[in-house]
């Protein structure tokens, strides 16, 4: 259920989001010294779990790029 490698998660997340940007949502849950990331388009769901601060930086980057793409102007 959880994707083990960050690169896999990032790659699949990009693909899933670009496929249908209106339907995808990116969720981040922080509890008990664990971080859970989830990107879903209501058909498929990609999840990543971590307890390391290093992964937070990578998640940060992914979130920023998604945020920029979501709020961008489309022609």
């Amino acid at each position: 259920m959880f994707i083990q490698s960050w690169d896999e998660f990032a790659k699949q997340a990009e693909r899933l989001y670009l496929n249908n940007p209106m339907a995808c949502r990116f969720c981040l849950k922080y509890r008990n010294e664990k971080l859970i990331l989830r990107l879903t388009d209501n058909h498929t769901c990609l999840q990543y779990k971590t307890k390391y601060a290093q992964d937070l930086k990578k998640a940060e980057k992914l979130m920023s790029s998604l945020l920029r793409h979501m709020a961008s102007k489309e022609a």
Partner: protein
Amino acid sequence: MLLENDNFLLELTKLFQQQRVKNSGSLSLIMKRYDGRTKPKPKLTKKQRLEQKSSSISHPTTHETVVEYKCLVRAVYGSKKLSTIVSSKDINRFQLAYANLLKANMDTLKKKAKENKTTGQTSTNTNSNTPLSPRMTTATTTTATTIASSSSSSASNQQKKTPTTPAKRK
């Protein structure tokens, strides 16, 4: 509660502090693309559907309208719910502030435990990833250059390369 961007960030810091104090409960942050509609999209009647079909067949639709999307950001902690809408002109400011906020507040995550790799011990997966990749790339680039050169020399070069790579790994 729908707030302005700055208010949302302030309230979010408060939520993080509350979580730290209580040391229980989960804080969820959600991001989604938003196109600004406030009413649900009505389903078309049969007549409208037929009209739409015929019009699309007669003249193909050309997308000339520029749609400006926004981003909806929600935060939930226990029963407290916050939300904000970020449009493209505020995105730079919001993104910086948001990133800083997350980095500053999610500090109970552990640091990766590094194992010593002086005497050729097996390091952890994550640590071995980074040292391996530059090595791998250099190996592939050197083999690529040898393949580009003449075949006879490439064979001898490759023979030369293979003994060095295990030596490097040590």
